[in-house]
């Protein structure tokens, strides 16, 4: 059962996405602050991270993503944002932001599920050759 870490300071987003993912057979762990998130990822070693760009500070998401990567976390990271397209944060997933994909809020549940499954499969394919 793949483990998803949802990192978002909006408890409703966390709860709704948890319900969605759990009803689809995922295990969900969550954190609402930067410090909790670091601790959570270290403790739980999730298979994929769903990260919100803006928490207390507008760039907490980026800060966290970089921190995870530097501390050797290689699992896929999907970043959720409310403003990506609109404010010309037109950063696709690039080397500057070490993540797999940006999704714009509100993310339709079907899309979120699809992307999580996709990136999990990719990650698996990467570690097990021939899969």
């Amino acid at each position, binding site marked *: 059962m793949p483990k998803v870490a949802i990192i978002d300071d909006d408890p*409703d*987003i966390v709860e709704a996405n948890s*319900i*969605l993912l759990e009803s689809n057979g995922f295990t969900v762990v969550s954190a609402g602050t930067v410090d909790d998130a670091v601790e959570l990822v270290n403790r739980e070693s999730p298979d994929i991270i769903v990260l919100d760009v803006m928490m207390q500070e507008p760039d907490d998401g980026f800060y966290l993503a970089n921190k995870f990567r530097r501390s050797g976390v290689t699992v896929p990271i999907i970043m959720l944002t409310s403003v990506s397209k*609109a404010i010309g944060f037109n950063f696709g997933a690039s080397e500057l932001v070490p993540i797999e994909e940006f999704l714009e809020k*509100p993310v339709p549940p079907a899309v979120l599920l699809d992307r999580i499954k996709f990136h999990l499969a990719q990650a698996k394919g990467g570690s097990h050759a021939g899969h």
Partner: protein
Amino acid sequence: MRAKPFVLTPQWIMFDEFWISLKRRNRWLVYLRYGAAAMLAGFAAGAPLALHLRVETVPILMIAAAILAYNLVLHRLLQTIPTTHARFHGLHFALIQISLDIVALLVFLYLSGGIESPFFVLLIFHVIIGSLILPRAIVSTIITIAVAVMGTGTFMEFRGIIPHYTIGDFPHLLSSHPNYLVLSFVVMVFALYMSNYLANSISKELYQRERALTQAYKDLEDAEKAKSRYVMSVVHDLKTPIAAAITYLTLILDKTFGPLKPEIERPLERSKHRLAGAIKLINDILELSQVRLSGGLTTEKVNLTEIIHEIYDEMRIMFTSKNIRFTTWTNAAEDVYIEADPKLLKLALANLISNAHKYTDPEGNVEVHIKVKGDFVFIEVADDGIGIPEQEQSRIFEDFFRTSISKKRTTEGTGLGLTIVRQIIQQMHGSIRLESPSRLAREGRPGTAFFVTLPRILPDISPGETAKA
């Protein structure tokens, strides 16, 4: 000529437009001087024959030659004058040319009758030009020196210390009536100082006003940017809770929590639909703020043909579900490339095409034409939809404006789409206009056509402030 910069450049002229117009004025003075030298030579050579006056032809011709010579040097020097406040700048240049002119004029005045010369009014002309450009103190100093030279010269002529020249054979006034001389001199001095004072006050006031206007414009721009940033943060905070609500509603409607009573399903669908409308409005406002916030564009060579096809691909389902025929046409043999900001260009065109789709009934037509002509590309997005009433056409680009017809329909719209489009097109130095009925008009379906003109290669844009996240 060792004028100190701080004397030449008072605080009130320290703005870009001043230096640019100063360079232009300096150039005009150089051009005018060629004419002056030619007229002077013409006078020296032609006056004895045409006007039957006795003039010192050779010395005056030499003055004309001297003026021509230093003007050639000035003309060359002009190219190197920067349009900023540099070590040697436009005001130094102006001071040099005006001083040289006054020296040449004084020599010419002496040779053409001194205080009796009909040309001494030219001194006032020079003082006015000088006062328009140079600070008052500098020009006053020049006037004082010129007046002292003329006064001394006249006195010396009167006493016979230096010879007196005249351009007529008539008995000269110099010896006959000293009071007349003094009167002429006093009037001249008065006119010189008054011209300096008045011309300088007026031009200073104009420069100050120009600077105030420039500043006011910049302040307005800054205020607009601050407002856009504020709107963006507010709107972002609005969007987050709506996004959460939509996620819950979607889960409920997907029956994640179990089956739904059919009579509950529709109200929930409507809730979700209305919230989605709010998200769309928020995204539109964010986009508009973004366009207004970005002073500079990131420009690159963009494949316009490909962008149109990308937009259609993204909207294909929308078009096929309404059975609207989408066709493109171009006069270019290959893909059309233009210099533009790819993201904004796509945003603008997508807005136009999505509008055409939105306001066209099933079985309708939407056509996009790309015409390349010279340095411009003309894009036409035409439909045979509901059209825009003539009296509303001029308001269509206003924020939140929706036409009376569109409001009657169930079509959701925020009234921001075309505002965004026009802002983008204008930022790209293009223009947009509309026609309704369009050329696709048919019975009861006037349709609308938008015509966008964009330069294929952008003129130089000063690097503006780019948006910060």
